[in-house]
């Protein structure tokens, strides 16, 4: 009997092919949309964490209040002791100090006269310590366009776009003009050892990467840094864990009036990211929800249409002596088969397209030209565990529930009317 029903279902394209296409298409869209939003959010979190916020950040209260101005005169001092204490107390995180700065990069000609000048946004990171993971974290190796990663003090990387704008090449000497921690002018010469492209518009517009100790020297910040970033060693931002550590750390300084006492912030606390992420997730879930609702309605309708189309067949089966519950069950099994088949196909295709979008992404650099948000130029989808079931489960449920409701008509069918109904 099962073989008989499957045979009928496969031959009747309105009963099999069409609903399978509808289910597969709905599941495909849901999988892609979800994975895309998820991937985009993850990229956003990841980029912000790696280049700006860390999973946790420690700075001074005063620095935090004026963070957008990168006020290095309000930076952390006693860095070594603080780092040691963080490493001891929170060993699940990799702690690293950074200095962010802005300045003017000057490139002299062979006579020492200014040939080109351009404002730069700088990031001083620990490039040379054995313990440091900063090169990997910032993906410096793969971001190099020309030259190499700094190997000794005094070497810097600048963004390739900036290098082209200033007509600078590898090995050229450049001068940074900035403000030191005392508010005085800082002047320091560097050698450009490489150019980079991070794929993040904010960084690629005009970034300069130096070693931390070089900038500590240049900005007169011995044993100091603008901020200490903490990265969960699992490499994932775990909001609850980060929040727990933040509360624990800040509780030690809760009664301090000192504007230079350290304060810890989670990734979500910074740059309005928490609100942005909540908003983005809300929009994402709305989009996925609308897709799911639309898909469910379409599938429910498909189930109802199928019920109407098969009215005659059900009538004959009832007349021939098949019990109502048995017909109902067989139709439900069919819908489960269709739901599973469509959902498997939809999920597989969805994952394949998601994989493509994960590998190659969509270039949105044009729209980020004037953006200050730390967002990658390529937005990518991400295959996660959820991607495997976000479309599959609703696809299967919507098909089955649609048929469950439409199939109730079988029980309402009056066998007394069969002769009349079947005489059409």
């Amino acid at each position, binding site marked *: 009997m099962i073989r008989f029903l499957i045979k009928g279902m496969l031959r009747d394209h309105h009963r099999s092919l069409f609903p399978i296409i509808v289910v597969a298409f709905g599941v495909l869209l849901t999988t892609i949309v979800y994975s895309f939003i998820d991937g985009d959010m993850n990229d956003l979190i990841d980029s912000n964490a790696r280049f700006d916020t860390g999973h946790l950040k420690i700075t001074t209260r005063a620095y935090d209040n004026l963070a957008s101005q990168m006020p290095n005169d309000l930076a952390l001092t006693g860095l070594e002791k603080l780092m040691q204490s963080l490493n001891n107390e929170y060993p699940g995180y990799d702690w690293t100090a950074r200095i962010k700065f802005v300045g003017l990069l000057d490139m002299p000609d062979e006579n020492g006269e200014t040939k080109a000048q351009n404002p730069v946004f700088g990031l001083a990171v620990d490039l040379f310590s054995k313990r440091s993971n900063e090169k990997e974290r910032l993906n410096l190796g793969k971001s190099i366009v020309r030259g190499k990663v700094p190997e000794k003090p005094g070497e810097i990387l600048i963004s390739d776009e900036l290098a082209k704008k200033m007509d600078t090449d590898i090995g050229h000497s450049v001068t940074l003009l900035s403000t030191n921690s005392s508010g005085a002018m800082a002047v320091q010469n560097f050698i450009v050892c490489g150019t980079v492209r991070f794929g993040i518009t904010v960084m690629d517009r005009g970034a300069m990467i130096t070693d931390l100790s070089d900038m500590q020297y240049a900005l007169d910040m011995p044993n100091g840094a603008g901020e200490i970033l903490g990265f969960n060693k699992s490499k994932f931002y775990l909001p609850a864990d980060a929040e727990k550590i933040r509360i624990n750390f800040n509780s030690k300084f809760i009664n301090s009036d000192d504007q230079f006492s350290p304060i810890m912030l989670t990734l979500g606390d910074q740059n309005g990211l928490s609100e942005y992420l909540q908003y983005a997730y809300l929009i994402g879930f709305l989009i996925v929800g609308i897709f799911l609702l639309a898909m469910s309605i379409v599938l429910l309708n498909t189930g109802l249409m199928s019920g109407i189309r098969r009215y005659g067949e059900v009538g*004959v*089966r009832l007349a*021939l002596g098949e019990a109502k519950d048995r017909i109902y069950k067989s139709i439900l099994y069919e819908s489960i088969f269709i739901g599973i088949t469509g959902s498997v196909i939809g999920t597989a295709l969805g994952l394949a397209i998601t994989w493509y979008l994960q590998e190659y992404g969509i270039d949105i650099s044009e729209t980020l030209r004037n953006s200050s948000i730390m967002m990658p130029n390529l937005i990518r989808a991400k295959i996660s565990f959820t991607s495997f079931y976000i479309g599959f489960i609703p696809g299967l449920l919507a098909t089955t529930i649609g048929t469950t409701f439409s199939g109730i008509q079988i029980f309402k069918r009056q066998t007394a009317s069969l002769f009349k109904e079947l*005489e059409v």
Partner: protein
Amino acid sequence: MIDSKIIEVNNLIKDYSMGKQFFRALNGVNLSVNTGDFCGLVGPSGSGKTTLLNIIGALDNPTGGDAIVMDKSVNSLNHKEAAKLRNESIGFIFQTYNLLPVYTVFENVEFPLLLLKKNKTEREESVMRALEWVGLTDKANSKPNQLSGGESQRVAVARAMVKIPRIVLADEPTANLDAANSHNILKTMQRLNLELKTTFIFATHDEKVIGYLRRKVMLNDGKVIDDINLS
């Protein structure tokens, strides 16, 4: 078996509600049908032919009185028991054939046997035998849309007969057929009635059908007005 009562209808009443009022489709019908009868319920539209067929076929329950079909009171059957009775003992032939379009002729005829959970060999033998009865063995692999009206109705007869039911109920089986096909179908049913002793009950007002009947039960306004033995 012959001449033993297979259907006994006693003072059968069937009312259909029409808002606050009701319409009496059967008004105290009494009827006995013997095994092997080739019997027609004849009468104008609205006389109660199909209603009576419905009740005998356990498709509907009477409002009053009783219909005993193969020693079972239709009144006392629940949905499942009624389905079982139809499945095991009653074949149906409809005016418009009602073959399942996605299945072949063979599979259409096979369907009642699947409901009876017959094994594959039994099914194959029974289906081919039924197709042989109606002269359609060469069309076993055809789809219903490849058949003429007469052929389709012969498949419907094969489907009704394949399980060799005790009773076959046919509602206007020749209404959509031309004269030649009607005679062909009726002759086939007549032959099966004689060979297999299956009881045939027709609801009809077609003169061609009436010509083949051995018993004519005349209905009017829900009552049996005449019961004529034509054999």
